[in-house]
């Protein structure tokens, strides 16, 4: 069919096309590349009807595409919306009665279709949600009891809450997806007027398959799955925790229910207790009314923080049968976080940063220094080997602690605001110069600029060497432990340590 005829046909059957939209909210139009295959009005209407979810349900579940192509009712007259509706009803009725006829004649067994689909693709827990390439990890929830209060499939089952089924692999023929619609009592099944006997047969078949597959034990555990070792009386047990898409759906529903309950409660409180004033006509009252409704939220607020966690990537059906909004949106629960240390940030504005060495650190350093001094080749040198020996043990511990302190201070300084008169300003270089009597040192500038390169390493080496020279004192003579050669070696060792920190 060429473009012009197709465009004309689409105009003629606009009503039918509007009725045959697919998708969960019935907004996806019939795709053009399907319509192009039509040769006459009859096949055009057939393609439209096949796209309607109710009719598509029969075609996919009972593989009736060929039968439907030969037995579809005649095309409705053009431009008649009522006739289009009647045409679709006639399609559904003919499919429904054909399914019943086949079932009575023994040509079609819905129970067998359902049980084969569930045996092939059904599962509760699936390794696909851990890694979409993981195979052979599909387990049904066991019929075991629990006395523990935790939320698990066992405690849910004890309260009569069924875990929604998931898929262990994608069924390309679309049979399993439609069996799931029947099991979940989807509105589509009622709209398709599926006979009650067919629904009962499908449910019985699925239940039989779940029971049968529940006994299934995989012989291999995929290397893509996690394995946790749990201690037992005889040694250890390797356990692979599996995720359940149905669990995600239940959590998502529960979160929405809590949010909706809160929303309804807030609306009840927001309603004025006295009877509303008689409405006056005019622009002014209208504005006030509009403002009143605008201040009230129109949909539930999000009480739970949801983060995007893209399991299965862009194509979620590779991992799970459930929608991305349930599977890829976990709830996030925060824990207490330490407040930013404002005192440290504000005191940094007026005073330069100082290094404090603890007594334990100084004692350990003195012990290290005494050991190094005994070896002439190292104690009297600042060669590469001597620096390498120095850059370890007590000095390394001191350097790492001070470096971490500087990094933390730098992070705090970059986050905190400084109250400068009436306004709050961020802490930067200009503020330090304005507030301090002496210009800020090189180390202070590195911290406020958040630059931790060569300048920072040199400044830290200087600061740490000075601090050690000042604080590491020989207890007998009260003289500094460090000589000029020691200071040079230590300074190089600090830079070396910071390069790899």
């Amino acid at each position, binding site marked *: 069919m060429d473009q012009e005829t197709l465009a004309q046909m689409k105009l003629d059957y606009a009503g039918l096309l509007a009725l045959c939209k697919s998708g969960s909210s019935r907004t996806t139009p019939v795709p053009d590349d399907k319509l192009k295959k039509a040769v006459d009005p009859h096949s055009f209407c057939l393609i439209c009807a096949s796209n309607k979810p109710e009719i598509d349900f029969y075609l996919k579940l009972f593989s009736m595409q060929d039968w439907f192509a030969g037995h579809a009712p005649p095309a409705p007259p053009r431009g008649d919306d009522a006739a289009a509706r009647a045409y679709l009803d006639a399609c559904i009725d003919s499919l429904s009665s054909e399914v019943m006829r086949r079932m009575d004649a023994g040509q079609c067994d819905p129970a067998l279709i359902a049980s084969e689909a569930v045996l092939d693709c059904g599962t509760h827990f699936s390794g696909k949600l851990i890694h979409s390439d993981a195979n052979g990890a599909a387990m049904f929830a066991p019929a*075991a009891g629990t006395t523990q209060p935790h939320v698990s499939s066992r405690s849910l089952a004890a309260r009569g809450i069924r875990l929604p089924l998931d898929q262990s692999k994608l069924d390309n023929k679309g049979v399993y997806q439609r069996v799931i619609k029947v099991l979940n009592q989807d509105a589509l099944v009622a709209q398709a007027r599926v006979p009650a006997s067919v629904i009962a047969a499908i449910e019985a078949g699925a239940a039989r398959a779940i029971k049968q597959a529940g006994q299934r034990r995989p012989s291999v555990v995929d290397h893509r799955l996690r394995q946790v070792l*749990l201690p037992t009386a005889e040694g250890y*047990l390797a356990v692979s925790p599996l*995720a359940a898409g149905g669990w995600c759906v239940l959590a998502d529903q529960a979160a929405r229910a809590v949010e909706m309950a809160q929303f309804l409660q807030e609306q009840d409180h927001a309603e004025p207790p006295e009877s509303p004033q008689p409405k006056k006509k005019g622009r002014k009252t209208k504005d006030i009314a509009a403002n009143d409704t605008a201040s009230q939220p129109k949909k539930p607020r999000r009480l739970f923080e949801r983060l995007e966690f893209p399991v299965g*990537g862009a194509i979620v059906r590779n991992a799970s049968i459930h929608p991305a909004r349930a599977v890829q949106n976990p709830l*996030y*629960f925060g824990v207490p976080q*330490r407040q930013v240390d404002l005192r440290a940030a504000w005191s940094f504005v007026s005073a330069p940063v100082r290094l404090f060495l603890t007594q334990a650190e100084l004692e350990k350093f003195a012990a290290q220094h005494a050991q190094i001094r005994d070896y002439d080749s190292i104690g009297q040198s600042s060669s590469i080997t001597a620096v390498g020996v120095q850059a370890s043990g007590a000095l390394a511990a001191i350097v790492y602690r001070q470096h971490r302190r500087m990094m933390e201070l730098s992070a705090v300084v970059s986050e905190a605001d400084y109250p400068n008169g009436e306004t709050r300003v961020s802490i930067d270089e200009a503020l330090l110069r304005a507030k301090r009597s002496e210009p800020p040192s090189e180390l202070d500038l590195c911290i406020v600029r958040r630059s931790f390169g060569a300048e920072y390493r040199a400044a830290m080496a200087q600061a740490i060497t000075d601090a050690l020279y000042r604080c590491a004192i020989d207890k007998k003579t009260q003289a500094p432990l460090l000589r000029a050669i020691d200071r040079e070696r230590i300074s190089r060792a600090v830079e070396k340590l910071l390069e790899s920190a």
Partner: protein
Amino acid sequence: MNYVTIALRASKTSMLQNLSILSPAPVFAAVMAMHALDKKIHGGLGLQGVGLIHQNAQPWIEHLEDKGYLQSEIVHRRGAVLFDSAPDPSQNSMQPMALADLEWTILLACDRVGNPAEIENTLLNMRFAGGDVRSASVRCFEDMDGALRSIRRGFWIDDDSDVLAGADDPMAALLQAQRSAPWRVPANLGYALLEPPAPRKGARDAHPHAFAEHMIGLLRYTPIHQARETISLANLWRYGWDADQFLVTNRPGVSLSPACFPSI
């Protein structure tokens, strides 16, 4: 009884409790890491219980602006393996991960006296909830009072799962309980087996293997200065089996057995 406090900093620890709950509270991993520490130390510590004190957490979550609103986004990383379909590693697919940097203090009650340097060195070579241990400073005490007094700040972590008992819908009860009190956080506190354990090809270290599901319970964070008086040996965290469910808990009155009995 001897007591050890470990001030631990770990980065890149996992926040994933199960697929739909993220929280930077790896309690199960922490208790079992202390079991591993006990086994790795030469001669063993004779671990009797673990106390968990939360200090700080920095989740890997960025707040990005989207149409005037701040949107929280998890920091993901790209896979390391170059695929044929990707021209360069920057096109590699994102690997879903939820990470956090943690600062915890862990209290151990042990039968034997530990050597602080050995404990520290062992910890630095271990993983903590899948993350790297950046630093661990270990102190040993002879009584619990002294050990607790040395911990100046932080939040004592309790198992609060009992509030879920008897609810009509455990899932709804979990979310409502979380909102009804300050600092109640859902977390994975155990695994329930989906099948009896069996030898299986590909199992770790050729141990018997079983597939399992998560058991999501509730934690309660109490400031340590309020909790300090109530802490005793009885409410330290311990682990064990309830039939074929492996649990970590510090609820008094829950009896756990060292052996697994399949119930399916």
